[in-house]
């Protein structure tokens, strides 16, 4: 039921955009009519940035991230897709305060399921990515589990000593199922949004700690290997000259 709702939402949003773009689309209909023949799908390279990372970096002092996105159209409805990013973030998650920083890449494909009218170029896609991160975790502070709290100041966070400090050379690998859409705003410029469900395959655990936040994967919870993320992309298609 939830999935149906998400789809209904995507499509409704798309229709909203469509009415805005109707005029533009009409113009293009005329152009393709003048060509008269259905072209072979050309290779098209799109690249751009993820706006959600940019926005969060601006809004929060504890977050610094950047992600570039790109896809290459290799078939009628088939795109090779990649995302490469870098994130540094300081978080307080319940009893621990840590800084996670590192890079990641994601590589895979998107399959378009949206039937475009002549002259339109929008996508509703479902895709898959393999992703890998290389990161480090710095444990800034933590609290001790002590329910009785006999002595005062036993609930003060521990900021130094044996357990705090940096855990370098960590990594993680995961798969992402990506559902998303891209709408052509103006010629060769696309606005997109994607929702990702991540499934962790393997990760190198930090000593005496856990991979509580993996760049690109986001928060890892203790009892399941799923993560989720969202991305808003702005991409530009490098125009190939048509004959």
């Amino acid at each position, binding site marked *: 039921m939830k999935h149906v709702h998400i789809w209904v*939402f995507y499509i409704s*949003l798309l229709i909203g955009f469509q009415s805005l773009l109707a005029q533009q689309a009409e113009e293009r209909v005329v152009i393709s009519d003048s060509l008269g023949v259905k072209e072979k799908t050309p290779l098209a390279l799109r690249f751009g940035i993820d706006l959600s990372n940019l926005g969060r970096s601006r809004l929060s002092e504890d977050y610094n991230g950047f992600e570039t996105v790109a896809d290459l159209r290799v078939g009628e409805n088939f795109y090779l897709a990649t995302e490469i990013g870098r994130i540094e973030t300081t978080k307080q998650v319940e009893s621990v305060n840590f800084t996670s920083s590192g890079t990641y890449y994601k590589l895979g494909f998107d399959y378009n399921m949206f039937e475009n009218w002549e002259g339109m170029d929008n996508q509703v896609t479902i895709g898959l990515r393999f992703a890998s991160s290389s990161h480090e975790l710095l444990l800034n502070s933590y609290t001790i*589990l002590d329910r009785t709290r*006999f*002595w005062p100041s036993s609930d003060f966070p521990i900021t130094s000593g044996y357990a705090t400090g940096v855990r370098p050379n960590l990594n993680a690998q995961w798969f992402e199922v990506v559902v998303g859409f891209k709408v052509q705003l103006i010629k060769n410029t696309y606005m997109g949004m994607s929702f990702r469900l991540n499934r962790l395959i393997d990760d190198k655990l930090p000593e*005496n*700690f856990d991979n509580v936040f993996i760049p690109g994967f986001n928060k890892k*919870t*203790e009892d399941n290997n799923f993560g989720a993320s*969202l991305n808003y992309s702005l991409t530009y298609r490098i125009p190939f000259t048509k004959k």
Partner: protein
Amino acid sequence: MNKQKNGFLGLLVLLILFGCERDDICIETVTESPDLILLMLDFENPQNRKTPSGFSIRPIGIEKSLPKTPSDSLALPLKIQENNIQFEFITNQGSENENIDTLQINYQRFDTFINTACGYRSNFILDTPPALILNPGSNWIKGITVLKDTISDETRAHLGILH
């Protein structure tokens, strides 16, 4: 216009849903940081436990009494921010031959990760010597023996006090 409105509403709902992250909760059954388990032993016969007469314990540095009245075995809460605790061990309390021995117990702390919700659990290792009597002369405590120098649980006694 209506469709656009629906679209924005949908986006808003999705953003709100993603704004909520599941928080882990530290479950009650997770064992907390252990206390030091002390046994009061008979000096003549160290295998046997013996409760001192008129026995009482007072922590130094806080106006608070131990959660349990002390007997031949007791649990002493350890400080996390410091590497020692001091307690007054009192025998024959209130009587003519009341005797107070001040005991300092020295240890090192090492913390192990439980999970993000519970944080870390403190474990301790007793120093050598594990305990000092701060008021030498006419002590009723005759000796101290280490039973287990690593304090990582409360299933076994760690320190024995001979009297």
